């Protein structure tokens, strides 16, 4: 790029830029500028907080469901493979105990 060319372009346009700068001065803000800005900041803060809360809630729901599935997958087969502690009913157990007592109390050959 030629230095002379740059200067030529600059020389001709510089006064125009200066005039334009003077024709467009800085803007004085209105009285509402600062209150509205803080309203927007607060609104954004609220939106950010609620989106974080939503994200946390979603994470907790997913974690809870995953934990429930994992616990189910581990515990259900374990319960299914172990035999139940009591196979007989209460009446059966009593009858068995009673017959055992009879054999102890009554010697063989004796009847009531």
């Amino acid at each position: 790029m030629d230095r002379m060319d740059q200067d030529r372009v600059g020389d001709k346009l510089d006064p125009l830029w200066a005039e334009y700068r003077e024709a467009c001065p800085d803007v004085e803000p209105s009285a509402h500028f600062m209150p509205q800005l803080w309203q927007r900041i607060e609104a954004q803060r609220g939106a950010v907080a609620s989106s974080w809360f939503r994200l946390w809630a979603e994470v907790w729901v997913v974690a809870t469901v995953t934990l429930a599935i994992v616990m189910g997958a581990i515990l259900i087969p374990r319960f299914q493979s172990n035999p139940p502690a009591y196979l007989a009913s209460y009446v059966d157990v009593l009858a068995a105990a009673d017959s055992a007592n009879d054999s102890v109390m009554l010697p063989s050959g004796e009847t009531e």
Partner: protein
Amino acid sequence: MLIEFELIEKARSGDDGAFNLVVKAYRKRILGTIARLIGRPEDVEDVGQEVFLRLYYSLDQLRAAEVFEPWLYRLTVNAAYDYLRRQKRRHESRMSDLSEQQVMMADASAGGKKQTEELRRTKVREMVHSLLEKVSEEDRILLMMKEVEGLSLKELEQIYKVNENALKVRLFRARQRVLKAFEAGEV
């Protein structure tokens, strides 16, 4: 710098009072820059608030207080550019609206000398806006930042994250295009 680095540091650490002072120090300058970039007085405050809103939520990403001004100008350029793109999508003719409004402003100003002065300013504004229509939106903003806002190439380098030579070439081409239109009297 219009403010002390210490104030920026305070604002960066979450001090809302310090942030308020930062905004108060820069708002007039930033609103002026936005007005020249977008050319629609009625939307200047809205875009200005967008700039400071983005500043508030990005201050923690600022590397050092020394680069605060280029950072703020970068946010300003981006917000103005976003605004202009939105306007383009709405198919609004920026120049015709602006001219109409400026003519109205000129009409409204009372007194002969004052009116003449306002008309001259309106003419200058319209002429520069028409000349700048000869270059792309990006180059128009770049030219404005260099020639009207008076930023140095070093500052532009920090704003645009482009090396100085690339900026020089881009500026030279944009200036040439504008000069060509100026000399041809295309305005």
